[in-house]
């Protein structure tokens, strides 16, 4: 009960600040929190990256295993993306089957990776129709302080970009070799707070938001995925403005995925 009241007061305060173009943590509406990216955080994975977006922390790990191509794509490997919003990361998460929120993150991240053709799947084919690599991307959210989608895709793409195909371990080739990424999709998420649209929302800003919009772009200037979420609405003009801002931020975030470090 008192929790609800506190939340309402906080929401009002966030909206009041936004009306003046201000935010609780002092950022401008078009400013991301501090970003750090640490590839190779987990050596048991074939690729990994720990991404921090302010107080949000997300760990992505890649595992490649031999598998069988799908019948309708005999010359292609298989991608599988999964995000776990484990209860360690936030007081609102419960143990149990994946909640709609976790499923949405998984699918929005997966959609950007696929649509951008991040990985050339034909390179993951070993023997057409018989053997291929299955590439599992598991995103483990450790600290959920808002904007999981951007952090998760950034961690996933960084981990893919630094991953190794364990061909030697599985007796498929003489040596392991880099997985190689051909495109770098980046997702940028915005929320509406009254008439102000802010980028990279915190957890509290997401609670106060009147609509969320995520736009994925790649380095060739294409929009590769979008997802409107939460209760609320955007005008077509809002969408166009957000897309423009997403291209600018995307360019900057992409450097983290490529280079790794902050």
């Amino acid at each position, binding site marked *: 009960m008192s929790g609800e009241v506190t939340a309402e007061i906080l929401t009002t305060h966030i909206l009041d600040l936004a009306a003046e173009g201000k935010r609780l943590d002092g950022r401008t509406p078009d400013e991301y929190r501090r970003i750090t990216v640490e590839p190779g955080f987990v050596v048991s994975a074939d690729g990994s990256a720990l991404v921090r977006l302010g107080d949000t922390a997300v760990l992505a790990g890649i595992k490649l295993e031999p598998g069988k191509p799908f019948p309708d794509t005999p010359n292609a490997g298989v991608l599988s993306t999964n995000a776990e919003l484990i209860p360690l990361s936030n007081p609102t998460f419960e143990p149990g089957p994946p909640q*709609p929120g976790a499923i949405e993150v998984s699918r929005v991240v997966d959609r950007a990776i696929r649509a951008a053709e991040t990985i050339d799947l034909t390179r993951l084919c070993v023997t057409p129709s018989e053997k291929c690599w299955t590439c599992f991307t598991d995103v483990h959210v450790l600290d959920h302080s808002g904007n999981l989608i951007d952090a998760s895709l950034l961690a996933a793409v960084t981990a893919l970009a630094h991953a190794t195909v364990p061909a030697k371990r599985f007796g498929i080739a003489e040596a392991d070799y880099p997985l190689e990424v051909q495109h770098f999709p980046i997702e940028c998420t915005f929320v509406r707070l009254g008439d102000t649209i802010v980028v990279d929302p915190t957890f509290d800003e997401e609670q106060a938001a009147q*609509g969320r919009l995520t736009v994925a772009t790649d380095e060739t*200037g294409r929009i590769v*995925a979008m997802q409107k979420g939460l209760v609320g609405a955007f005008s077509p003009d809002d969408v166009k403005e957000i897309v423009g801002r997403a291209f600018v931020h995307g360019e900057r975030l992409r450097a983290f995925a490529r280079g790794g470090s902050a």
Partner: protein
Amino acid sequence: MGSVGAKEVPVLLTPDGRRIDGRTLDELRPIRIEAGALHQADGSAFVEWGANKVMAAVYGPREVHPRHLQQNNKAVIQCRYNMAAFSVDERKRPGLDRRSQEISKVIAEAFESVVFAEEYPRTSIDIYIEVLQANAGTRCAGLVAASVALADAGIPMVDLLPAVAVGKVGGAIALDLRKEEDNYGEADLPMALVPQSGRLVLLQMEGHMTEEELARSLDLGVQGCRTIYEKMKAALRERYAVGPPAGGAA
């Protein structure tokens, strides 16, 4: 969205700008909306849209299940979008897969944006969408059916929610993709509009387009939604003209 190694692509666009089924780029498939198609539900609608057949039912406001989801200051809006096992070419295992769960979530959020939920605290408004036959655009058909079903159930809303998908096919921006266009096209962009405010409450995109193409797609989609809006209102007018439950998905 053009999968790797897929078989040869059919011709999706003729030189004179006609599509695989003869439509122009800004032409909708035929759509038929029947309000009040079921007897048990508090509100219902059946939509035939191209080769899609979608049934929607609304129950509520009623007690919340499971109880811990109850909210003190408003109704909870729950949505379950489901595909029948036989609605697609390759049989789908019964039950909600991740795609269905994601669609259920974005549809619920779209309706939460227009229903006056605070009028029914501590209750649940349950929306069920069943795709019986699928041919691209089922989430939009589901939204249209659910929206009419909510109106049929007498749930107060800001406005009805027309919805349509725009896509990129053979390099061109086209309204209301059918299955072949969706499978072999370059992008798919479903949206749902609040006609009164001109704002979008559902928007997703997959594939690839430029910024300029996206702008054109949004405009084309809004225009398509407005056409569908008229058909939705007509279906409800017909329903109230007739009176008691009509009954007849067929």
